[in-house]
């Protein structure tokens, strides 16, 4: 399936891009591990929240073709 991945904050800086399209056959956990390795992202997944199609979801969420996937590092608004 093709996924649309968006990056924010330090993950965007490391990835060197706001977003990318990627072919991926596995789940969100394997997607994070794959992209973290590709972009040199060292943040452990335990510190990252997952959002799919604009909503927070659990890491066990099944991904579907065309999903927008966002890996959210710890927030610092306010």
């Amino acid at each position, binding site marked *: 399936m093709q996924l649309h991945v968006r990056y924010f904050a*330090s993950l965007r800086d490391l990835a060197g891009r706001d977003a990318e399209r990627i072919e991926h056959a596995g789940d969100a956990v394997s997607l994070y591990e794959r992209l973290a390795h590709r972009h040199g992202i060292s943040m452990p997944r335990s510190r990252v929240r997952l959002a799919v199609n604009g*909503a927070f979801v659990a890491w066990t969420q099944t991904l579907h073709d065309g999903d927008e996937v966002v890996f959210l590092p710890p927030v*610092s*608004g*306010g």
Partner: protein
Amino acid sequence: MSRGASSFFRLNDHGIDVAGLRRALDDRHCGAVVGFDGIVRDHHGGRAVSELRYEAYAELAEREGQVIVEEARAKFAVRRIVAEHRVGLLAIGEIAVYVGVAAAHRDAAFSACRYVIDEIKARVPIWKHEHYADGAAEWIHPD
């Protein structure tokens, strides 16, 4: 206007108009308004800060902010809540976030205001990029 329309969370990319937001809280039935202004400080963790940039995952930030506002309206006896958070580049002294709550009584107004700002800081996907006086810059990702 529906009851909900008078309460909101939204992102702001140009400057928070506290006086205007405060007027949106006017309500003849309310005896108490509590407001919180979060302001860009000139230091953080012992380092001199020169400016900040806030970045948001906008769609989810506005959705999650609105969820927080509705949670506060359900938990506390308040009538109106308005909240805005800046994105983009901010100078020292600028308002980064405003939360205003109007209620019949002060206890609920204080509690709801505190709840909303605490939850915004914990849950809303907004990130702070601090620029330091020495030229360095850093994304803040609290443990």
